[in-house]
């Protein structure tokens, strides 16, 4: 005969944990159930409403993080179509026209991430392509062919 474990023969509602313990545990469970039930109807209603609204297309859903932080989806899409995979890119963010510094930081990071497998480098001189975002391409330390990426964004193919 092998050991199976301590087995209590009485059901949970009537076991010998003591009356006070039963009451307190019952109270804890009642509070837990009340807390859990409080928001459930609203969540179900919200989910039902969500399922009845059409979802956005796949690309715009991929670009949600950039859009949330104010980065132009148009610039990202055009950059992905213009710059070949595997190219080295540098992102130069300026303030013309004026740009919130948080949006500027997000633009640099999000472009480097979303444009993979293009490799992001820190200086334009090391790049095959330079993306200027709210920055005039005339001020770049490199020269090349310019391609528009929508309002306030350009891509410059660096001439060597």
């Amino acid at each position, binding site marked *: *005969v092998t050991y199976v474990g*301590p087995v209590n023969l009485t*059901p*949970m509602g009537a076991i010998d944990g003591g009356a006070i313990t039963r009451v307190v545990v019952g109270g*804890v469970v009642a509070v*837990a*159930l009340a807390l859990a039930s409080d928001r459930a109807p609203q969540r179900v209603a919200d989910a039902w409403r969500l*399922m009845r609204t059409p979802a956005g297309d796949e690309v715009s859903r991929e670009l949600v993080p950039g859009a949330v*932080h104010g980065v132009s989806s148009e610039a990202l899409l055009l950059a992905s179509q213009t710059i070949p995979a595997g190219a080295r890119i540098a992102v130069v963010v300026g303030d013309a026209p004026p740009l919130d510094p948080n949006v500027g930081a997000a633009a640099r990071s999000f472009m480097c991430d979303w444009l993979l497998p293009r*490799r992001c480098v820190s200086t334009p001189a090391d790049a095959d392509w330079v993306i200027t975002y709210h920055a005039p391409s005339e001020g770049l330390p490199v020269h090349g062919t310019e391609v528009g990426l929508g309002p306030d964004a350009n891509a410059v193919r660096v001439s060597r």
Partner: protein
Amino acid sequence: MTREYAGLVAFDAVVLCVGLAWVAGLRLADARRPVATAGLAFFTGWIAVGVALALAVSFGVDPSVTAVLGAAVLAGACGLAFRLHGSRDGPRRVLRDERRLAVVGAAGAVVLVAATVTQLLWAWRSGADSSWDVWSMWEAKGRALYFFHGYETGPGGVTTYAHPDYPPFVTALIAAQYHFMGGPHATRLPFQQGLLSISFFGAVVALVRSRVPAWILYPTLAALAAAPRFWERMQSVLPDQAVAYFVAVAAVALILWLDERRGSFLALATLALAACALAKNEGVLLGTALVVAFGVAAAAARAPRARLVAIALLGPLAIVPWKWWLSRHGLSHVATDYAWRDLLHPGDLARNADRLGYASGHMLSLLFDTHLWTWVVVLGLAAVALALFRARTPAVAILAWAVISFLGQLTVYWIGRLEIQYYVATSAERVVGTLPIVLGAAAPLLLALSFQPRRGPTRPAAMERTGIEPVTYGLQSRRSPS
């Protein structure tokens, strides 16, 4: 689109198969509860595949489809191997449900299902995770790992993103899913996290259901699932909530091990702690705190503490290959935001004492903020307090873990190098979230243990001391194979 969905289904099927191998190997399957068992299997498979891939990545392997299948075969074989050497006991049924309270359990189960399924629907319809740390670091690293076929240190490589010292569990799993889907489809990651969240509840239910009546189990878990911060983060690609799941399952498994001494629980806890250490730097602290707390509790309970500590510590030690990889590539293998050696400078500590007050005040207010966690922390502490009367050892262990981990995280803020207001504002809410989740997951078991009659040492402990083999013990005896 078809390849994307087919790949996702294939990846999840691989994870489930690995988990089933572990569940079968550890004899944790319960045929009476196939849904919960499937949840436990998916959860276990996720962490087993994740740990295998994180270790493989640390040795320069690309988490491609072939590599994932290879890692899955190895991980599954490891799980099945326990069947040859582990305990022959399956899940035990200790307490029977009270029928007149069935409606309470059913109500809790309905709310739990509603909370998790609605979140999964949100995850399916939502866009890519827009949290700054996700797209600028975690997902970006996974994407770079996918495109460049390994942890690369060159331009655009994984190490060019923030915190290159962060361990590779999450990034390896993201890259693996991208390989299966045939592209970097970040919109599918929240759904996968939602599945992991549901499987977390399945895992807890599968582990404790035979010991915890439904009227306690489901309402308390539903309270956790419905807490606003928990609910919102169920689909988060940030690893904080996943780390909390891993610690919570390890804690529940160690409580069960303390009571039953089945090696299966120790093995599961060790695997969860390995995932914890390989998912975030803080995971090492949280996991080690759990091993220390339960090691001390086991010593007090005259349990084989040396075995517990020796085996469970293998979990946090799983980080060693990753540290070796960092050193080999000339990267710092310690956190950049703080350094534990700063604790050796009393002058600096005294000068930074004001950081302690600021951080502790904010951490406590976040913990007990009912807009974030409703009353989950209070309920969890009430469960610990109740269990102190009838199940002192696990209650003390959980309480000790909570105190150690809170103080450990507070110490990080104390010795941190970032400006304290910024540091707390950008991380405290996520960091303290582990406590409510662990307390909430352990609460049902602790409440049930607080009901158990006072009794002498269980059979294994008695056997260790007396060497007397009882003929039967309990109601559900069965014949030995011999």
